[in-house]
């Protein structure tokens, strides 16, 4: 895929993800949006490493410029931490659903609906 096309796709993914994160009221949808936006930013970093005509950053693959290895190394971190934090966020959503019986942020934020001690 051409670098610019990947960039356009990554920006679209981040836009869609942020839209879901801001506009949607359901917590699961918000987490899904956050994950889509994270996918877009990962694709953005990969596109950042792309150079026209460059070879992979591996020794012995021929002469010429190599792709930037630094964004690719950052992407590894992003993917693993994204998975782990999503799992932890889902645990909190399970807890909220268990105690408040809703995933709607507007209802969750209303204090009068919290159980009285």
């Amino acid at each position, binding site marked *: 895929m051409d670098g610019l096309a990947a960039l356009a796709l990554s920006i679209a993914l*981040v836009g869609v993800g*942020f839209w879901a994160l801001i506009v949607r009221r359901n917590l699961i949808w918000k987490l899904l949006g956050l994950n889509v936006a994270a996918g877009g930013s990962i694709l953005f970093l990969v596109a*950042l490493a792309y150079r026209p005509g460059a070879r*992979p*950053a591996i020794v012995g693959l021929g002469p010429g*410029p190599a792709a930037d290895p630094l964004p690719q190394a950052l992407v*590894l971190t992003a993917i693993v*931490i994204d998975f782990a934090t999503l799992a932890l966020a889902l*645990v909190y959503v*399970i807890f909220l659903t268990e105690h408040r019986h809703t995933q709607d942020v507007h209802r969750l934020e209303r204090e009068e609906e919290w159980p009285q001690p």
Partner: protein
Amino acid sequence: MKWLSGLAVLGLMALLALGVSGIFPRLELPDPEPIALSWGARNAVAAIVLGVRLWDTLFEILIYAMTIAGVKLGLRFLRWEREVPPLAETPLLRRSADLLLGPVFVFALYVAVSGHLGPGGGFPAGALLGTGLLILAMAKGVERLSAEIHEPSLEWVEYGAIAVILGLASGLLLLGQRGASYFVAANLLIMVEVAIGAWVVLHRFASSRGEV
């Protein structure tokens, strides 16, 4: 306000895209080959992840382990009370999972061991192995597989892998030792940690919210 913040984010992304697309001049990259070779690897990404920015990777492993421990502790008191019938088990699914697990395991091992020579490394290998366990769990049932692979011992293996990799990497970094054997050992340990962490998350979610 909502739309304004959305527009601000999109504007920022467009500015970044302009920077990347070549309209603005980009910095010349240093040649990654000498950096990779100085660490005893051929893959420059592996040399960066396990060499140049090793402390970052070590703390990433710690964050991963802490979130897995958080999932484990958070879901400890939530048990699925109703009896959920497991998915219908077909001989085809079971045989396919049994047949696929071996090649998946070997491929994960290959990806981890050759991570410093070409594309690969401990993190993708761990994801591969975790996916292999997921396939097997879907065929056999999570609780049965958990009993078969002795999950409590596996969790101690995960903690052991984390401790060994922290000690090994910090020691080698302080001593200034480099080389291919270090990359192989570190990638194998990271594979074990990521695969077991992924399995623990899968099992806890399945046992708290019903059978896979």
